[in-house]
């Protein structure tokens, strides 16, 4: 069997989720009631038998490290391989490289030592449930040097403006990677590459003073190599703004969308919290809502997502909102179209109403 090693490259990801990314990087933003964004990339890799995974982190990675631990939740606490969290090495005197190439340069050892023939590189903003072994299969059949993964989206949303798009021919060979605002072939920030070829490209990129490995080392040299496009057909969400976070979170209340992401045979896993089952009291009234463990619900909740350990008081009304871990909403508070980050407290009787398309966001540990 051909082995794949994984790199989750967060280096160039912008933290664009306003209050949600004040204190954490985008990869560590809580999602879908009990996960963090990065859980999807890691679980997909683990489910694809990728047993050696490096995370290239640069900014605000404290909560990310706390979340990932030694990779235990994904069975990645291994003697050989497993999970490596690699913040930048600020002190390497030989390192002249810039941008994310600095990461590739500093961590050549990870790439060279990994017991793998291929490297799968992914970001954390494309939420999906994908099997990278299928990608490898197609990569080999196409005899490609690099395989990039894309999603054909039905409808273009603002978040897709920031994404790269693919221009491909009938054989799914990539002709161009660009920012064509009309194209619906959204590059998912994931590519598969043979390890030795990657080594060579990294060295050449460093020699040329590049600063972004994918953009300059691969996209910039498309004519020199065979780049194949793999179409991912499953449930997909690109989360790179508060607006896309809110809309895509609430899409999970749809059964089809939800089941496309959370499958029994390729489960998305996350750090375990040991919360008790959710508790619904006599006067609770909950409709069309995702509820995580540890919640205690007295009030009325609809079209919302409650993360682990949220308390909803008597007579409180929550509509169309996302309430993160261990928030406390006191009696008779009213919330609509809001995103409330972890550990917030809304005192009794308060009302907060955001716009349906532009939710009101409350930063972590605030008391209102």
């Amino acid at each position, binding site marked *: 069997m051909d082995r794949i090693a994984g790199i989750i490259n967060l280096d160039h990801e912008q933290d664009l989720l306003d209050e949600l990314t004040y204190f954490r990087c985008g990869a560590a933003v809580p999602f879908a009631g009990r996960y963090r964004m990065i859980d999807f990339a890691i679980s997909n890799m683990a489910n694809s038998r990728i047993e050696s995974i490096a995370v290239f982190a640069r900014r605000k990675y404290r909560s990310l490290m706390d979340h990932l631990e030694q990779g235990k939740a994904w069975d990645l606490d291994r003697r050989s391989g497993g999970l490596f969290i690699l913040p930048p090495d600020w002190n390497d005197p030989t390192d002249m490289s810039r941008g994310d190439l600095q990461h590739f340069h500093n961590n050549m050892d990870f790439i060279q030592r990994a017991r793998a023939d291929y490297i799968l590189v992914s970001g954390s903003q494309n939420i999906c449930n994908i099997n990278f072994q299928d990608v490898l299969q197609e990569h080999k059949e196409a005899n490609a040097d690099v395989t990039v993964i894309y999603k054909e989206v039905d409808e273009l949303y603002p978040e897709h403006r920031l994404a790269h798009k693919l221009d491909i021919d009938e054989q799914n060979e990539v002709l161009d990677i660009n920012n064509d605002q009309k194209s619906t072939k959204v590059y998912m920030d994931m590519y598969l590459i043979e390890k030795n070829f990657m080594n060579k490209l990294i060295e050449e990129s460093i020699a040329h003073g590049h600063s972004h490995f994918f953009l300059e080392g691969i996209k910039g040299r498309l004519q020199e190599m065979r780049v194949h496009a793999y179409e991912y057909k499953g449930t997909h969400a690109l989360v790179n703004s508060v607006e896309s976070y809110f809309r895509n979170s609430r899409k999970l209340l749809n059964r089809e969308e939800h089941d496309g992401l959370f499958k029994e045979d390729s489960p998305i896993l*996350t750090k375990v919290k040991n919360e008790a089952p*959710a508790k619904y009291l006599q006067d*609770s009234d*909950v409709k069309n809502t995702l509820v995580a*463990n540890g919640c205690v619900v007295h009030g009325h909740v609809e079209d919302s997502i409650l993360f682990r350990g949220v308390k909803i008081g008597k007579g409180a009304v929550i509509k169309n909102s996302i309430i993160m871990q261990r928030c406390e909403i006191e009696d008779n508070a009213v919330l609509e179209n809001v995103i409330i980050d972890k550990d917030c407290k809304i005192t009794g009787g308060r009302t907060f109403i955001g716009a349906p398309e532009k939710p009101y966001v409350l930063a972590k540990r605030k008391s209102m």
Partner: protein
Amino acid sequence: MKQKECVAMLLAGGQGTRLKSLTKQIAKPAVYFGGKYRIIDFPLSNCTNSGIDTVGVLTQYEPLILNDYIGIGSSWDLDRKFGGVSVLPPYMQADGGDWYTGTANAIYRNIKFLNQYEPEHVLILSGDHIYKMDYEEMLDYHKATEADATISVLEVPWEDASRFGIMNTNESGRIVDFDEKPAYPLNNLASMGVYIFKWDVLKQYLIEDEQKPNSSHDFGKDIIPAFLNDDRRMMAYTFKGYWKDVGTVDSLWEANMDLLSENPELNLNDYSWQIYSKNPNQPAQYIAPTAHVRNALINEGCRVHGTVDTSVIFYGVHIEDSALVKDSVIMPNVKIGKNVKIYRSLIAEGSVIEDNTVIGNPEPDSDITLHAEEGSVMATNYAVTN
């Protein structure tokens, strides 16, 4: 030389026949409770929270699921370099071997295990009860009173006292007599089956008891009476809080229902004394627009389209449109079809209830129904990690 002050020995070999088909293929301590736990999570979590990091789990009856569940103890933070959790089944020796013939015999046969840690005290636990208890406080009391043995007791209502083993004490709390299920109780202090012994004293009694041909090698029937007989210093330690023997279908159902009150005596949301368990790591539960949920505990991976009223729902349960689950306990991965009605029942793991089925009796105070399909109890489907 490294040693441990106190080592716990958890008696988990019991069959629990009064739980009927729930324990057909699993030992009683592995029976489900409270929406996500197994009974054994309570004593194991109590050990961890009490600072006891060395636990021997004595298994005998149907150990497969229990072994698998305990693993190396990481769910309870009991994966330790020195100590941690050890599963101790009966084994063969040069001069033969046998099953554990009684609770005292089970400890006797593991003297070598205990000697490894040179403990001063041994805590004996059973895997049959639901309670949160700080064993360290009991150990402090045991040491302060310089007792040879300390037995944890619970004040029970006088009218119930004849259903328990009752400890008769003097003013200082010293145990002067022990009555197993007395018709006319002299006291209302019931033994909880939690003992702390000085290990060197207990060891001597275990060795002596083993030589007695007529002994049943049982703590309650043989060891405690022998201590009393020799006037050994035995103290009663009074525990205050929720404690429940879940040895029957009715009491198991009742203990689950106890969790549904607004402020239950057994608080599972207390972050200072968490009950740990192996977590199935499934997605957040989904409550559909058609659902009505009140007075319920529901775990992750569930999908509720119907009505759940006054019930405890374990992980991975699907409840379809127009189904009703009332006053019931639904164990993991049960699928409940459309228009099903379930009243006052325990539904065993993995059961599939076809559309339009009616299970149980809606009459208040009617008997509790236990629904278990052939083999369904074996379906261990907790996917991954702890």
